[in-house]
């Protein structure tokens, strides 16, 4: 068990393992995207009030869910990196940030597009949209701090610390903003109990869950690809990267 973690912390071992796993995640993401996307966009029923514009949900909800959980993931990997001084954890944390920021931006953009027909405005200072916007700034802060520090280990630790401070603040910000103003529709799938008896019809729920799975698999795929690149970049002076480059022509 422990030897597995020690091995995982070695960049070389991670590079090889990630390379082997990558195609499976990529295939899974592509398949669930295709299935969930076509089901959601073409075959699921339109909403009785919102009509076809409800289909934005199949992009908006998974992006919003991922935007929050990627931030948590980033903070957890940062804690692992800070406590056990594992360089690889910092690399994973660093590469989760831009992906999470992209999900947040997608959630904001689709939320705004959805708000136009539903609330009649492009932007409404609605609680959840606002806290997504602040989350985007939190992501930008972590990324900007990492970029501003030249020395890599310092940048890793400083950005990791900021991510931890941010993750303590995310619920506080979320609930204070919620309390300040809310007009967003309630969540339809908040917990496992609600999934068993959801406030959303099964014809909409299944494509939505598929899309959430697709977004998650996509996240893992892109994260593994980015981290592999970073491993190569940081370890470029080590022997195994040199060997790897020699065995592959034209790289």
């Amino acid at each position: 068990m422990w030897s597995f973690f020690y091995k995982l912390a070695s960049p070389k071992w991670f590079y090889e393992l990630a390379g082997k796993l990558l195609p499976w995640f990529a295939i899974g993401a592509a398949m669930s995207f295709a299935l969930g996307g076509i089901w959601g966009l073409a075959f699921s029923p339109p909403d009785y009030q919102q009509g076809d514009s409800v289909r934005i949900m199949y992009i908006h909800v998974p992006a919003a869910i991922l935007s929050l959980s990627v931030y948590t993931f980033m903070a957890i990997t940062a804690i692992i990196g800070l406590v056990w001084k594992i360089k690889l954890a910092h690399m994973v944390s660093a590469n989760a940030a831009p992906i999470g920021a992209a999900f947040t931006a997608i959630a904001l953009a689709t939320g705004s597009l959805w708000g136009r027909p539903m609330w009649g405005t492009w932007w409404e200072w609605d609680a959840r949209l606002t806290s997504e916007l602040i989350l985007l700034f939190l992501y930008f802060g972590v990324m900007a701090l990492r970029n501003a520090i030249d020395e890599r280990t310092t940048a890793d630790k400083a950005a990791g610390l900021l991510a931890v401070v941010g993750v303590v603040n995310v619920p506080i910000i979320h609930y204070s903003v919620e309390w300040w103003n809310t007009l967003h529709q309630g969540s339809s799938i908040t917990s496992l109990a609600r999934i068993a008896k959801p406030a959303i019809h099964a014809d909409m729920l299944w494509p939505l869950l598929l899309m959430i799975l697709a977004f998650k698999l996509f996240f893992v795929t892109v994260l593994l690809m980015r981290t592999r690149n970073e491993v190569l970049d940081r370890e470029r002076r080590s022997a195994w990267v040199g060997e790897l480059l020699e065995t592959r022509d034209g790289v």
Partner: protein
Amino acid sequence: MSAGLMHAFVAVLRRDLLLALRRRGDSLNPLLFFVLAVTLFPLGIGPEPQRLAEVAPGVLWVAALLATLLSLDSLFRADHEDGALEQLMLMPQPLSVLVLAKILAHWLVSGLPLLLMSPLLGVVLHLPEASFGALFLGLALGTPVLSLVGAIGAALTVGLRRGGMLLSLLVLPLYVPVLIFGAGAVAQAGMGLSYAGQLAMLGALLALSLSLAPLACAAALRVTEN
């Protein structure tokens, strides 16, 4: 708290206050900024008392937020440049307690004057009489939170060349809850409603940041100060 720790705490506090007293001009800048920023709003949105009274809670709190933000950059910078920060880290006492002394000094120099000036600016903005208590109490609970949370950002950016802009990006999102509850309390009071809930939330934020921020701040200094 043991006697040695208390002694070190007081010594750091005294040193920072003395330094602030010697550099009176710098220390007054946040207060001047606060007054100036508030003065700009009537010029920008018009002098009608009713409209000013409506936006006054938000204006006062945002101005206080930005004034605190401006003062943060100087929290560790001078000590970083002359090496005093390294000496502080080498002391046998826990760094978080010493950092807390520095943050307290920072609040006494930059937060307290804002607090004392705020009723006057409330008058200028035609804030309803019922709101003054909420404004004062809210700022009394809220400005220490701003100093405490801001200190983490200041510690993370201390060695950087262009730390100022980055600092605002790091710190302002974290200030959102304080702004919401602070300005909310003033607005509630203006409508004659109870604002105890908002003050309780500000108090909770103060308790949380008082217990965690010095630890985070000390950890950040150990990272950036190598």
